[in-house]
């Protein structure tokens, strides 16, 4: 299987679907920019031309309505935002239109579009350019929301999103852009709405989202050395959440930790723990726990920014606390923190 970077995997998903389906096109602000959206559109403008790589003006709200309308007429547009933080600007079109269209008219039209946003974490981007917003995006019914955790996800979820007949919000973390992995060729799909058991285990269920998947895998590895068997679930889709897979796992392990790269109270971590508490209370041997961002925006200063983001160490602590009531299991976790290497300094 070809090995490619996360960004190349996204590019591959675009290229394969655009070659196979004339109704697929890309639209967004700055997408004909030579930097090609962090490389994820490399060469596509050249290959598919102005007709299918459509530069938009700075009018994200209009572009969202535009995208969704083209979808109802049989096209499969992908609207691309350099920053996921622009989604709130478009939320009337997303929540009130795109996400309600099918229901409101009795399911007469397909709404086959994708809205992609990129998380800008790192390099002192500050509060307005570092949000994750997958919980926010999932909070109003009517759209699907996916968050890829690795190169394989990046391609498989994008292909599925493009070929889905319902609107899909696709949120990728710039943070993961340089990660590489094996990625199947062709129109490789990963089912939307299904979580992926990345590592089997019997002591505790660790559900992780996006960049927390890699942290959780590191944590599980370290914990294995101390005799703890952790089942790591890569959530992949945050709306609809695959509660079945999670509950089946908790019924086996009896313990639950959710690791999310989002705020604590209204996001995926709450949604999962709520559902498990309601539906699998009897299976839980201990209180469930979550590892999330603190309950406030992220600071710009690199003097304190790293302490904002939970990493493998915090996951290990949370798991240890649940399993044994103390955190002092493991120290010296290698820092997978990457934003401060200086690779993420632009373009804006």
């Amino acid at each position: 299987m070809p090995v490619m970077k996360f960004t190349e995997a996204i590019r591959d998903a675009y290229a394969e679907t655009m070659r196979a389906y004339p109704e697929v096109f890309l639209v967004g602000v700055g997408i004909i920019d030579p930097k090609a959206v962090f490389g994820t559109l490399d060469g596509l403008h050249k290959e598919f031309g102005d007709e299918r790589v459509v530069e938009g003006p700075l009018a994200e709200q209009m572009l969202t309505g535009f995208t969704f309308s083209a979808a109802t007429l049989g096209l499969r547009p992908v609207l691309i935002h350099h920053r996921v933080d622009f989604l709130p600007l478009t939320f009337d079109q997303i929540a009130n239109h795109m996400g309600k269209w099918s229901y409101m008219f009795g399911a007469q039209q397909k709404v086959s579009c994708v809205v992609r946003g990129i998380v800008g974490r790192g390099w002192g981007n500050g509060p307005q350019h570092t949000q994750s917003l997958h919980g926010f995006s999932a909070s109003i019914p009517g759209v699907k929301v996916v968050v890829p955790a690795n190169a394989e996800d990046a391609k498989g979820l994008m292909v599925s999103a493009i070929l889905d007949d319902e609107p899909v919000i696709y949120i990728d973390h710039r943070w993961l852009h340089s990660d590489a992995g094996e990625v199947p060729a062709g129109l490789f799909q990963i089912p939307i709405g299904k979580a992926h058991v990345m590592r089997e285990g019997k002591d505790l269920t660790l559900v992780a989202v996006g960049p927390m998947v890699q942290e959780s895998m590191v944590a599980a590895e370290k914990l294995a050395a101390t005799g703890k068997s952790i089942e790591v679930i890569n959530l992949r889709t945050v709306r609809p959440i695959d509660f079945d897979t999670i509950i089946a796992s908790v019924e086996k392990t009896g313990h639950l930790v959710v690791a999310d790269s989002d705020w604590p109270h209204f996001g995926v971590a709450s949604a999962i723990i709520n559902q498990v508490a309601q539906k699998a209370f009897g299976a839980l041997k201990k209180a469930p726990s979550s590892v999330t961002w603190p309950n406030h925006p992220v600071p710009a200063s690199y003097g304190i920014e790293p302490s904002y983001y939970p990493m493998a160490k915090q996951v290990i602590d949370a798991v240890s606390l649940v399993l044994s009531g103390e955190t002092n299991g493991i120290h010296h976790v290698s820092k997978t923190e990457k934003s401060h290497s200086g690779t993420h300094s632009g373009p804006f």
Partner: protein
Amino acid sequence: MGDRNKNQDLIRSLYASALRIRMVEDAIAKEYPKGEMKTPIHLYTGEEAIAAGVCAALTKEDVVYAYYRSHGWYLAKGGNLNRMIDELFGKATGCSKGYGGSMHLIDLDVGFQGTTALVAGAMPHAVGAAFTMKYKKQHHVAISAFGDAATEEGLFQESLMFASLRKLPAIFICENNGLATNTLIQYRQPDYPIYKRAAGFGLESVQVDGNDAVAVYEAMNEAVIRAREGGGPTFIECLTYRVLEHCGPNSDVSLGFRTQEEVDAWKKRDPIVRLEQHIDAETKAQLIEQNQREIQVAFEGARRAPFPTSLIPEGYQCL
């Protein structure tokens, strides 16, 4: 002579279209107090010439995106009357199967695309549709219809500018009735004509008497030809007047923001009366009778039709 006939045919069809809208709206207003249509209604009474004039210049393949005040647009584009009344009654046989209500009408068979309750919300949808026509190398046009207040929303600028930049086959129809709910336009907009503001986005822009169906049709016809030939979008401001209250079947003069005299003065410019001058009595009587019959059938059918049985529309997947 051919021209005169053509003109006579045009006027007849404009009259038939406008009259049908008027009679349907009157019937809804009359029946509404019975409480069987539990859905907000925004009647089009007094503004019929616009939808009639615009749609007379379109084919079935052209698409219309309108708003919550859309009974008239739906009918002028050829939407199925029975299914519209069923929708107002909340019935499963409604055009939106009962899930949408009065503000969300649709009839895809005739290019009447779904409408929205958010002011200006559908303008980008028309732009997306116009883009799609071009993408598919079809020569159809997309119409966006909206009120004067919709031009206050940022989406107005964003939609016009993109259509203009890309020379998309979109036609923007502003129904300027000088009102947003019960607020006069002078409290909302600087004193500068809307069509001139629109011209600033680099597209063709004209103003017409929106109570003159022929004038609307003619402006529209030019715009349609331009759009089909790849000449890009047009903005048409139609000056008109809302006769009834914003939402509901009654007059709103008692609220005090406008006078009965003003309403009466506009009634003299009634679009249907103006067309009627060119219509012979027999034609008129025939049309009235036919409409009455169809309206009666529609209301009787709606009363008998079943409610939806599920909270989830059949085929709806996104849960």
